[in-house]
């Protein structure tokens, strides 16, 4: 049971990181990114491949995961820079599917649908399963705290103000002399980097990556986490991620009480519940539990 709870703490932390990454791209800069699963996958595969094939140390793998996803983020941002939000939604959704397609088909690199197994974890051999999970949960949450603190500073800094200005009205921001393209690409890169870091941390915890783990449902979980928590606030992203994992796991126990359903039906019910939850949140509390606080400046009399 403790093991299970610790594993859930790890997953809550991973979702918190992803929600933080999305918060920079969508919450601050207002760019819709429905390709989260794709950036998460890039990070996971980058770290897995470098540590398994080239025997890089694990922390170097994590750093590479963040950098690889950030680099891909720059490319996606440059390609989509001039697109309206609805096109951006379509392109990013397509991007994550293409990542999954490449992961499934470039067998020489990714092992195809069999995936990559035997990914090392820090101290996994030396520690008991319980201690290992405890260590990893601590590690992931230290990463969450560090990333959240860094992003909160970034958000309060002039950089964050420019991003919010772009979100509210890109033309006005450009007229005010901000090079909006540079800011948008930077925001995309930072957000994608955090998503990639989450992917790297996931790969080494799970010890195994395969294309199936990067379904669009992952993107839905993260969007739900950020929307429920509150877009624009780093604390909202973290709170939302914890709630989403609680819901995801709560429905697992709920499913155990329902007799007479096949496992496929129970899985369908649980995944459907996440979709219903997101639709409900968008209707009932579109600004989330911790809405962004907007400071209103009054003109001097």
């Amino acid at each position, binding site marked *: 049971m403790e093991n299970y709870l610790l594993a859930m703490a790890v997953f809550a932390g991973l979702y918190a990181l992803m929600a933080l990454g999305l918060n920079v791209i969508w919450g601050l800069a207002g760019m819709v990114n429905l390709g989260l699963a794709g950036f998460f996958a890039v990070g996971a595969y980058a770290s897995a491949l470098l540590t398994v094939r080239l025997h890089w140390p694990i922390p170097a793998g994590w750093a590479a995961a963040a950098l690889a996803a950030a680099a891909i983020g720059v490319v996606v941002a440059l390609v989509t820079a001039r697109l309206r939000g*609805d096109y951006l939604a*379509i392109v990013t959704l*397509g991007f994550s599917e293409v990542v999954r397609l490449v992961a499934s088909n470039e067998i020489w690199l990714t092992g195809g649908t069999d995936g990559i197994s035997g990914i090392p974890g820090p101290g996994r051999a030396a520690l008991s399963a319980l201690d290992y999970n405890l260590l990893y949960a601590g590690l992931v949450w230290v990463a969450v705290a560090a990333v959240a603190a860094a992003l909160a500073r970034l958000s309060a800094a002039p950089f964050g103000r420019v991003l919010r200005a772009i979100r509210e009205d890109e033309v006005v921001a450009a007229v005010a002399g901000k090079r909006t393209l540079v800011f948008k690409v930077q925001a995309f890169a930072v957000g994608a980097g955090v998503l990639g870091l989450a992917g790297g941390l996931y790969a080494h915890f799970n010890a195994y990556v395969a294309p199936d783990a990067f379904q669009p449902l992952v993107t839905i979980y993260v*969007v739900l986490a950020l929307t429920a928590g509150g877009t624009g606030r780093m604390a909202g992203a973290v709170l939302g991620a914890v709630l989403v994992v609680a819901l995801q796991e709560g429905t697992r126990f709920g499913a155990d009480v329902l007799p007479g359903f096949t496992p496929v039906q129970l*899985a*369908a*019910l649980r995944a459907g519940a996440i979709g219903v939850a997101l*639709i409900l949140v*968008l209707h009932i509390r579109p600004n989330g539990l911790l809405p962004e606080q907007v400071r209103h400046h009054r003109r001097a009399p």
Partner: protein
Amino acid sequence: MPADALQLLVNGLMAGAVLAVPAIGFTAIYAVLRFPNFAVGGMATVGAYAGWVANTRAGWPAAASLAAAFAAGSAAGLLSDWVALRALRPSRGGTGGALAAAIASVALNIVIENAVRFVWGNDPRGYDLPVYRDWRVWDLRIGPQQLENAAMATAAMAALFVFLGSTRTGRMMRAVADNPALAALKGIDAERVAMLATALGMGLAGFGGMLTGLDTSIDPLTGFRVMLPVFAAAVVGGLGSVPGAVLGALVVGVGEELSLLVLPPSYRTAVGFVAILLVLSFRPRGLLGERAY
């Protein structure tokens, strides 16, 4: 070899005609409601299963089952739009930002896919159709089923163009798509037109979902698998343009087939994505622009 390329071209045109049906559905909803409704994927699956029930349980022929697929997609589309998306539409000043409805439609897709999975499970299902031997015309092989699918798709499109071009309701839809403010001034009820566009678009998605399943099999992810080519067709032609969706679908259909000359078949679906990127880089409003008709 040119003979191979010609064969692929013919296959691509037939596949493109089938793809055009859900692509028109997606683009028509965008033209009127101004958001990408990703639930077209879910409705394609609903239509495919409704048609499958009509075909294998009630014993209807393919054409009648396609009508059932249209009706089911239409009804499910209207109902789910009313329940889940209506309040979030950009035109109704939805509170969650401009794309709240689009994001909710992605969630809706997951709900629908899993509802279908709950009832029918993950196993692939096949339609009950007579099997024909391929025809040979000169050096070309033509599958009668593929040809029939393309013909039914073309018939549906022809009916749609007549509807949009020469009926009063069709003209109302085009008016709202073109200029909502002016249409409102002329006394056109935007809400009714929005519902009509949803019913029509999701019906076409259901019809297209069954068409794509006719020559293979269907499962709960049937609709999801056509989503990327459907988006590609709509964006390549110009999001919101009905003739654009047809042109885009033919481009994507032929592109997917011709890609077999240079790429392994598993990358076929990536062709649509590449087409989106190419077109958006050089013609951000698509080949035919965003005018609805």
